[in-house]
């Protein structure tokens, strides 16, 4: 009986550890800035799933959007792509450059929905 409890406890412990590690690996904890040559401000912490739960976001393409000829494609999404595949660091015209695209995607939505951080240092960690 005692052994049974011990085994159950061990299994529980191992599964909790496995689950915790697995889920922390699955979640992105910082916004990926590898597309930028050199960053100036600190990294931006971002828990993907937690953010979407809090914000009540279900459609991927609210953030991972696709635009064709300046028109938002309602049935398409781009979560398998890097932002930089469309947004260059110095693109112009209708398509915002990479940095502006990042800022507008986050801050733009936060302003519109009156929720979430909007000031530089509320997202960017201290240098």
């Amino acid at each position, binding site marked *: 009986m005692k052994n049974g409890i011990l085994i159950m406890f061990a299994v529980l412990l191992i599964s909790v550890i496995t689950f915790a590690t697995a889920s922390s690996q699955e979640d992105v904890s910082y916004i990926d800035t590898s597309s930028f040559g050199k960053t100036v401000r600190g990294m931006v912490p971002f828990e993907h799933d937690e953010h979407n739960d809090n914000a009540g976001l279900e459609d991927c393409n609210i953030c991972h959007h696709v635009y064709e000829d300046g028109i938002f494609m309602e049935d398409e999404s781009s979560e398998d792509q890097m932002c930089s595949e469309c947004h260059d660091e110095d693109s112009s015209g209708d398509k915002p450059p990479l940095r*502006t695209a990042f800022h507008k995607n986050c801050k733009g939505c936060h*302003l519109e929905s009156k929720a979430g951080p909007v*000031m530089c240092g509320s997202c960017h960690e201290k240098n």
Partner: protein
Amino acid sequence: MNTLYQFVAGPLLWIAFALFIGGSLYKVINLILLTQKKEAYLFCFLSWKWSLRSILHWLTPFGPRNMKLHPAMTVVTFIFHICLLLTPVFLLSHLILLEESINISWWALPDQVADIMTLLIIGACIFFLVRRINSPEVRYVTSASDFVLLAIVAAPFVTGFWAYHQWAGYQPAMILHIVTGEIMLVAIPFTRLSHMLFAVFTRAYIGSEFGGVRHAKDW
């Protein structure tokens, strides 16, 4: 905080810019019209040559005699004015907001350089404050408004420095930074900060009179 940010960085900012630009235009046009009405004789001897001679002399560190007599003030005031003009206009964070808002941008100072320039401005403000209190000839012509003006100028830089370093109370510091910046912009045409607009006219007036009429130096 989002609603407050949206208000101070939105409508309030446009009001501040409108008052700054509109007010500046009004003040300069009014100055020219008033001169035409009350001192029209000035236009008889107003000259580009004497105006520029005076302006250039007064733009040269240690050019005028008064600057040689007060070397510390000369060094501090030049550093202060150069940093004061350059830092806000070439600050990366400002340019990012401008680009996101109206899609215009230009070259930016490295953040570390802007940080040092901000410290120089704050240091200069402290120097001006101490000078006002300690120097008898300056204290004699000082009124309360001089301290208010100094505070108006120092506030956006103190709060900006605070916000950039993300010290405790970052968000209120940021709101205060925006509001104090707007107060300073509006104060430029309507207070003695208007020397930013009038300095060239003052020098043109005096320079032309001293150069063309009195045949003397005005520095």
